[in-house]
C-alpha cells in the first residue's frame, strides 16, 4: 500500500493497478488517431472568422494549387446531411447547427470548408490559403448583449422539468432574522481534453467504421447513422482509449458525419485531427452563468428561506440548459424554497456538459452564499452546514439513501487542521503571505442507466467481459475487470476486458458519473447468471435455485439467493457436471425507476439516466467536504494554493487507487476553475480570444502542491447492485467556493465572479 494505493476500508475493493497502466505509460495504447488506416486522405477544417453572417464567396484557386490537395468541400458542393435533434431533445447531436448546409454562419469557428489532401501538411497549407468573403452581421455575444432573447428554461428545454419550490419563500425571507442576497458569475470554460477531437472514417462496402474518442459509442453510432440516413447496424465506432473528455465527447458533433460523407465520396479512408483552437468551436463548452442567491436564516443558523435564480447562455437554435437548482434547492433543510432557471440565446455555438454539470456553477453560488451567511452569523462554516444537515430533502420530503456529509466535514477538518484557523478575516499571515482557510460542501447525484454485458467464463478460470463502456481515464477497464473477478472468484489477472466498441453490448454514455455504477451492476448481474448456471449444475435439486426465474436476455434478471450470496463455487466441478468448457451469458440490467422503453432506447443510443433527485421515493447523492489553504502575496497579490484536502463518501469504492486519482484530479480541476480557467470572449466579434493552451491557463505541476484525498467508508444498499455512487464528478464541485471562501478569510474580500485573478484583490 502507498499514497497512490490507499488501504481499502470497509466496503472498498482492492487498489489493483490500472488494467491499462502499462499500455498507457509505454505509449502502446492506441487512441483514435493512432489507428492504422490504409492510404487515408487527410481532412483539414476551415472554420469561420465571423460569429454571424453569410459567406458571399470562397476564393479557392490558390489553395487548390497546393500539391497534394484532392478537393475542397464547402456548402456549395457538400452532401446535404439529415437534420437530427439535439441529444437532450430526443436526438444525438451536440448542436442543431449543421455546417456545410448553407452560406449562413451561426457562430465563431463554425466549420465552413474541409480541405482533403494526401498529407496533413498539404491540407493545412491549403486551408491557410483559402480566402473567404463574408457578409458579417453584428453578433449578440453573451448576457446583456443587444439582440439576445431570454426566457425560462422550463417549457423550452425538455430535460428541464421543474423549477423546484416549496413553502412560501417570499414571506419567510421577509420575516427572516438574518438575510443574504448576493449575485455570482461563472465564466465560459472549455474542456480541453489532451486528446484532440480526432475522427477517422473507413467504409468497407456499405459498412462504416469510425475511430473517434467518444464517451458514448452507441450514441455516436446511431447519431451518425441518422445524419447519413443509413441503418445504424452498418456503423461501428471504435475507441479503446479516450484521452480525456470531461463531457466534450458525449454527444455527436457535426464533424463525424461530414467525415463519413467525405470518405464515402472519395472512396478512401478520411482522417481528421482538428487543431487545438478548432476544438474550442467544433465541440461543446461550459457556458457562462449568473446566479442570484437569497438566504434567510434564524440567528441559530437554521435556514428558513432559500431562493436560487440562475441564468445560462445557449445558442440561438438550441435550448441547452444545465440547471443545477434541482441540487441546490435540496442540499440543506429549509422549509421555504424557490428557484428559477432561464436561458439567454446568443450567437454562440451550443454549450454542453462539462465536468461536473450542473453542480459546478450552481454550487459555487450556493456554497459561497453559505459562507457569507456563516460570516454574517459569526458562526463556523462547518457548524452552519451541521445545523442545516438533513436526511430528507426539503422539496418532496424524500429520504437520502445515505448521506455522510458531516462525517466528511469532520474527517476533512481533522486532516486539514481546521481547528488551527483563527476565524477573523485577514488574521493569519506567514511572512509576505496572507493565509486563508476555506471550506465548502461538495456533492454529486448518484446516477445510473441501463447497460448490457456479455461475460464468458472458461473452465480454467479465465474470463472475458464485453461491454461497450468507455475508458476516459476513469478506470473503466479496471473496475469492470474487478467486478467480474470478484463475482466469479478468479484473480483479476484472469479477466480480459473489452470496451470502447459499439459492436459490444451497449453501455450508457460515460457521463454524469454513472459509468461505474451502471457497467459494474450489469457485469455483476451477468456474472450472477453464470454462477446460477454453475450452481444449478452442481445442485440440481436445491430448492432456492428453482425459485429463480429464467429471464436471461429479457431484462433485469432475478438471481437465486445461493448464486447471489457470494458462496464459493467449485468451478471445475461445475464445468465437469455441465460437460462444457465455456459458459457465456448476456444480460441487460436496468436501475429501479428506469422507464419502460429503457432497453430499446439503450440499443438506439438514447440513454435513460435515473437517480439523483429524480427517483420516485428517495434521493441519492455522493457527498464530500473540501478544504483549501490559500496564500496571497502581499506585494504581487499572486494567489497560490499550497494545500487541498477533500474527504468524500460515495458508497462502495470499487478501487481506492483509481478513485483517489479521480478525486485528486477533481480537486485540482476545481482549483484551476477557481483561479485560472476562463475562455475570453471578444464581445465585438462574438469570438473566443484565448483559444489555445498557452492563453487558456491550466495549472502546471508547480501550482499543485499538497493534495490529500480521504475516502470514508460508506455502504448504501438502496442505489444499485454495485452499491456505487460514482465519484468522477464529485470532487471538483465544491472547490470553486472553497477557494473563494479561503480568499475571503485571507483578505476580507468576497469575490463573486470566477476566475479570481490577482487584479481582483485589493488586499
Amino acid at each position: 500500500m502507498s499514497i497512490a494505493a490507499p488501504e481499502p476500508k470497509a466496503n472498498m475493493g482492492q487498489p489493483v493497478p490500472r488494467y491499462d497502466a502499462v499500455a498507457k505509460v509505454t505509449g502502446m495504447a492506441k487512441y483514435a488517431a493512432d489507428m492504422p488506416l490504409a492510404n487515408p486522405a487527410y481532412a483539414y477544417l476551415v472554420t469561420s472568422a465571423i460569429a454571424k453572417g453569410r459567406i458571399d464567396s470562397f476564393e479557392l484557386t490558390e489553395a487548390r494549387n497546393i500539391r497534394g490537395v484532392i478537393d475542397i468541400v464547402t456548402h456549395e458542393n457538400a452532401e446535404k446531411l439529415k437534420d437530427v435533434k439535439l441529444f437532450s431533445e430526443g436526438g444525438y447531436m451536440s448542436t442543431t447547427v449543421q455546417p456545410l448546409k448553407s452560406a449562413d454562419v451561426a457562430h465563431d469557428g463554425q466549420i465552413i470548408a474541409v480541405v482533403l489532401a494526401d498529407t496533413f501538411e498539404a491540407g493545412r497549407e491549403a486551408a491557410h490559403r483559402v480566402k473567404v468573403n463574408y457578409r458579417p452581421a453584428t453578433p449578440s455575444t453573451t448576457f446583456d448583449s443587444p439582440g439576445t432573447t431570454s426566457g425560462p428554461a422550463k417549457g423550452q428545454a425538455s430535460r428541464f422539468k421543474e423549477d423546484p419550490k416549496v413553502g412560501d419563500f417570499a414571506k419567510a425571507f421577509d420575516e427572516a432574522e438574518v438575510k443574504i442576497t448576493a449575485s455570482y458569475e461563472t465564466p465560459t470554460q472549455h474542456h480541453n481534453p489532451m486528446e484532440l477531437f480526432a475522427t477517422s472514417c473507413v467504409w468497407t462496402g456499405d459498412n462504416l467504421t469510425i475511430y473517434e474518442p467518444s464517451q458514448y459509442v452507441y450514441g455516436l453510432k446511431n447519431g451518425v447513422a441518422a445524419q447519413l440516413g443509413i441503418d445504424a447496424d452498418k456503423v461501428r465506432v471504435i475507441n479503446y482509449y479516450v484521452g480525456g473528455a470531461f463531457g466534450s465527447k458525449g454527444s455527436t458533433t457535426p464533424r463525424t458525419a461530414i467525415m463519413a460523407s467525405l470518405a464515402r465520396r472519395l472512396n478512401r479512408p478520411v482522417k481528421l485531427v482538428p487543431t487545438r483552437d478548432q476544438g474550442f468551436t467544433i465541440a461543446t463548452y461550459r457556458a457562462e452563468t449568473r446566479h442570484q442567491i437569497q438566504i434567510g436564516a434564524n440567528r441559530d443558523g437554521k435556514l428558513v428561506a432559500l431562493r436560487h435564480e440562475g441564468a445560462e447562455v445557449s445558442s440561438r437554435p438550441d435550448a441547452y440548459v444545465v440547471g443545477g437548482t434541482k441540487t441546490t434547492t435540496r442540499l440543506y433543510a429549509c422549509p421555504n424554497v424557490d428557484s428559477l432557471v432561464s436561458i439567454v440565446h446568443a450567437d454562440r455555438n451550443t454549450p454542453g456538459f462539462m465536468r461536473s454539470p450542473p453542480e459546478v456553477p450552481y454550487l459555487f453560488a450556493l456554497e459561497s452564499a453559505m459562507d457569507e451567511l456563516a460570516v454574517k452569523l459569526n458562526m463556523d462554516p462547518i457548524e452552519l452546514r451541521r445545523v442545516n444537515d438533513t436526511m430528507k430533502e426539503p422539496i418532496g420530503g424524500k429520504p437520502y439513501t445515505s448521506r455522510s456529509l458531516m462525517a466528511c466535514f469532520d474527517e476533512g477538518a481533522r486532516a486539514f487542521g481546521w481547528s488551527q484557523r483563527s476565524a477573523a478575516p485577514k488574521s493569519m499571515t506567514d511572512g509576505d503571505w496572507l493565509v486563508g482557510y476555506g471550506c465548502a460542501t461538495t456533492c454529486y447525484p448518484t446516477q445510473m442507466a441501463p447497460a448490457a454485458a456479455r461475460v464468458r467464463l472458461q473452465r480454467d478460470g479465465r474470463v472475458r467481459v464485453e461491454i461497450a463502456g468507455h475508458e476516459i481515464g476513469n478506470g473503466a477497464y479496471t473496475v469492470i475487470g474487478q467486478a467480474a473477478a470478484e463475482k466469479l472468484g478468479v484473480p483479476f489477472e484472469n479477466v480480459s476486458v473489452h470496451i470502447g466498441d459499439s459492436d459490444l453490448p451497449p453501455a450508457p454514455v460515460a457521463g454524469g458519473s454513472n459509468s461505474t455504477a451502471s457497467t459494474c451492476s450489469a457485469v455483476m448481474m451477468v456474472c450472477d447468471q453464470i454462477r446460477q448456471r454453475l450452481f444449478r449444475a452442481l445442485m440440481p435439486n436445491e430448492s432456492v435455485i428453482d425459485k429463480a426465474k429464467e429471464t436471461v436476455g429479457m431484462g433485469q434478471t432475478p438471481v437465486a439467493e445461493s448464486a447471489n450470496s457470494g458462496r464459493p463455487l467449485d468451478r471445475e466441478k461445475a464445468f465437469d457436471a455441465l460437460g462444457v468448457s465455456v459458459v457465456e451469458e448476456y444480460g441487460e440490467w436496468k436501475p429501479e425507476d428506469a422507464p419502460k422503453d429503457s432497453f430499446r432506447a439503450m440499443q438506439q443510443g438514447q440513454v435513460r439516466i435515473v437517480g439523483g433527485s429524480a427517483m420516485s421515493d428517495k434521493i441519492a447523492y455522493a457527498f464530500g467536504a473540501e478544504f483549501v489553504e490559500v496564500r496571497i502575496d502581499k506585494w504581487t497579490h499572486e494567489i497560490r494554493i499550497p494545500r487541498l484536502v477533500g474527504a468524500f463518501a460515495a458508497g462502495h469504492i470499487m478501487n481506492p487507487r483509481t478513485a483517489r486519482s479521480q478525486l485528486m484530479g477533481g480537486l485540482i480541476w476545481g482549483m484551476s476553475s477557481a483561479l485560472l480557467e476562463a475562455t475570453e470572449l471578444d464581445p465585438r466579434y462574438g469570438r473566443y480570444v484565448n483559444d489555445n493552451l498557452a492563453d487558456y491557463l491550466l495549472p502546471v505541476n508547480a501550482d499543485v502542491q499538497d493534495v490529500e484525498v480521504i475516502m470514508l467508508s460508506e455502504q448504501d444498499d438502496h442505489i444499485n447492485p454495485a452499491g456505487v455512487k460514482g465519484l468522477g464528478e464529485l470532487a471538483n464541485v465544491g472547490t470553486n467556493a472553497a477557494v473563494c471562501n479561503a480568499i475571503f478569510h485571507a483578505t476580507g474580500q468576497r469575490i463573486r465572479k470566477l476566475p479570481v485573478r490577482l487584479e481582483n484583490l485589493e488586499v
Partner: protein
Amino acid sequence: MRSFTYQRVTDPSAAIQALAMAVANNNPPTEATAQPLAGGTTLIDLMKLDVMRPRTVVDINPLASTWSAINLDGGNLRLGALARMSDVAANPEIQRNYPVIADSLRLAASPQLRNMATLGGNVLQRTRCTYFRDISYANCNKRDPGSGCAALDGFNRMHAVLGTSEQCIATYPGDFAQALIALDATVEITGKSGVRNIPFAQLHKPPDDSPQIETTLAPGELISAFTVSGRWPRSVYLKARDRQSYEFALSSAAVALDVQDGVISDARVALGGLATVPWRAREAEALIKGQKFDEALAQRVADAALAGAQGRRHNAFKIALGKRVVARALHQAATMEI
C-alpha cells in the same frame, strides 16, 4: 504552415549569405523570406499558425560550436547567442555574479523550452498578442500594416501599458531582455559587412507608427553574442504571474544595485510584462543614486517607473501591480545577502 526549404549552415558566413540571399526587398527581418532557425521555439510555432511564412529556413544550430560559449574573463561577461537558456541559468558563476540574469532565464518558459531555446532567439521572441498570433483576426498592424489593432479595444489583459502607440499595444513577452537592458549589455551583431556592436537598449524599437518593425537589425543580420561589463551580484529578477511556472509575466522587474557603505551608488531598474519593448526605467533610477534604501524611496521609485503608463480596459491593473513589483524587487535587491 507553408512548405519551405530547409538549409543547414555550418559557418557564420554561410549563414549570413543564406539569409542575405532573400532580402532583396525592403521587408523587416521578421518578414524576410529566409529566417534563421535556432531553438525554433518561436519560429516553428508562428509558422504552424501561418503568421510567419518563410520560404527558406536557415538552421544555424551548427554555429553553436563557436557561438554558444559562456565566458567570464576579466570581470566581464560574454554570452554566445546560441547558448541555451538552461545552460546559462544553471551556470554557478552567473548565479553568483549575475543573479538577475540567471533568474530571468530560470523563471522563463518551461524546462523543455529552456533546453531548446537560445539566448539570441529569446531576445527576439515575438509578442504573445493573441490577435497577432491568430490570422483569423483581420486587424493587426504588426502582421498586416495598416489593418488596425484589434487589441486596443479588445481583450487586452496581457497587453502593454508602457511604450504603446495607437497602432499597437502588444507586450514584449521576454524576461532575459529585461536583465540585459538593466545591465547595459552590448549586443554583438554579425552581418554581411562584419561585426558591429550596439547597446542592448538600441536593439528593440517601440511600435510607434510601424509596429511591424520590431528591431534595428538589418535583414540578414544575426545576433552573435551579448556582453556585460562589471559584475552585479546584488541583482534580482522578480516576476508576477497567474501561475507558479510556465507563464509570461503580468509584471516583472529586473533590479541591480551597487551599494557602498549603505549608499546606493548605482541602480538599474528594468520592467517586463508591461511594455512593448524591453523597458529601462531611467527616471526612476535617477531617484535612487546617492540615496540610502528605505521603503518610502522604493515607493517613489516605483511611482516614477510607471509614471508614463497608460492602461486600457483589461490591463489597467498592471500599473498598480507594476509599482508593487518594482518596490518589492528594490527591497529584495537592497536587502539581499551577497
